[in-house]
């Protein structure tokens, strides 16, 4: 069967959805994202990072493991210490006509424009075919199927550094005949809501958003100069809008998930919650724009950063209410 290439907002949820659809299970990217409890927030300061950073989704790989656990699909998964073995296994699967998802370093995806490619070891693509020394790649960020030379793919699959892929590949092994979507959806929702409001660590979930709001005021002390500070402030916009989040730090994708789940389960409560998180996403987008504007203009005095901090605090308040309500609701549905 021909692999249907489709663009997606995010590489991991898009790749998992594409593989499942190819295997015969009709499921959208937002449903994969929501059922796997993809939405999250974490603010991190560590000696390992040159500057504080934040994430707006769960850990790489958890979209696959979450969907596996909740809907009962099974994937074959392999990592390789030896690149040659990793290459042989990929070629073997492709020769059998099996499209295979690979974890890669995004930098080597040279069919995409140079200015967007950075070294990130958790980019997922699907390899659909091998033609001589060239692989045919379905990448969610490319409008069409792309070609990638063998050398680039090898470098991408066996890049070093944090989250190094070590040739990781996966493909569906089995799809259940019957899926209990009610339980899958609500367990996914319960897990995401719990992670947002109940985790005790001060840097995770809503607490992480508050910490971000508090700490951003002190970012000038951590910056080398105004150019550095401007760059870091503008990265807020990049992390929320540019890095395959589907907009507003995945909040819009979560809203789409809740809307689609509402239609699937015929549950108006989910539609109501979808509207609420969409509204929250709109306000996150205002933060993106605010950060981008003040960063671009180098308008980064204490008053501006205080304003930015207040906007982020307001998102923490809104998300605390939203995810607390969602958690309560999930308990009545399961």
């Amino acid at each position: 069967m021909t692999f249907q290439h489709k663009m997606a907002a995010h590489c991991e949820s898009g790749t998992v959805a594409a593989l499942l659809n190819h295997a015969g299970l009709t499921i959208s990217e937002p449903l994969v994202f929501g059922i796997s409890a993809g939405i999250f927030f974490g603010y991190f300061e560590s000696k390992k990072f040159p500057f504080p950073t934040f994430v707006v989704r769960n850990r790489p790989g958890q979209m696959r493991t979450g969907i596996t656990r909740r809907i009962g699909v099974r994937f074959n998964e392999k990592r390789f210490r030896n690149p040659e073995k990793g290459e042989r296994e990929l070629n073997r699967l492709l020769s059998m006509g099996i499209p295979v998802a690979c974890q890669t370093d995004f930098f080597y995806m040279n069919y995409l424009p140079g200015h967007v490619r950075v070294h990130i070891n958790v980019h997922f693509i699907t390899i659909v075919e091998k033609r001589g020394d060239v692989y045919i790649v379905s990448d969610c960020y490319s409008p069409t199927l792309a070609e990638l030379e063998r050398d680039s793919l090898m470098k991408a699959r066996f890049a070093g550094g944090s989250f190094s892929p070590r040739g990781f590949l996966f493909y569906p092994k089995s799809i259940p005949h019957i899926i209990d979507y009610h339980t899958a959806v609500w367990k996914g929702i319960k897990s995401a809501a719990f992670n947002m409001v109940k985790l005790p660590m001060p840097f995770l979930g809503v607490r992480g958003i508050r910490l971000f709001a508090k700490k951003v005021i002190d970012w000038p002390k951590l910056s080398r100069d105004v150019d550095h500070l401007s760059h870091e402030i503008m990265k807020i916009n990049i992390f929320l809008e540019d890095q395959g989040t589907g907009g507003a730090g995945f909040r819009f994708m979560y809203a789409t998930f809740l809307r689609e789940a509402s239609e699937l389960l015929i549950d108006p409560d989910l539609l109501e919650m979808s509207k609420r998180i969409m509204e929250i996403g709109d306000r996150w987008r205002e933060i993106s724009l605010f950060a981008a504007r003040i960063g671009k203009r180098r308008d980064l005095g204490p008053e501006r950063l205080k304003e930015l901090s207040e906007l982020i605090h307001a998102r923490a308040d809104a998300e605390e209410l939203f995810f607390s309500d969602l958690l309560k609701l999930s308990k009545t549905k399961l």
Partner: protein
Amino acid sequence: MNTILNDGLKKEIKLLIMEVLNINDVKPDEVGNDDSLFGEGNTLGLDSIDALEIVMALQEKYGVRIDDKNQSRFILKSITTIAEFIEKNRTL
């Protein structure tokens, strides 16, 4: 598609973009309907921050949502593509 209505809409979009981005040194007629809006060398030479401003302004004025970057790359290609998207999806 109704061409007269569409031409009116295209002009409206140009004015909206110029107002939102505070562009005073270019007249609406200087921007071709099919000109690329982004990148150096184009009449407006917009960047990704400008794109976000336009997305939010279009949502407010026409009730159209452009959630993700992949989508906006195609919709915000030119005045014509924006107008076509609005005509298909507007709620206001």
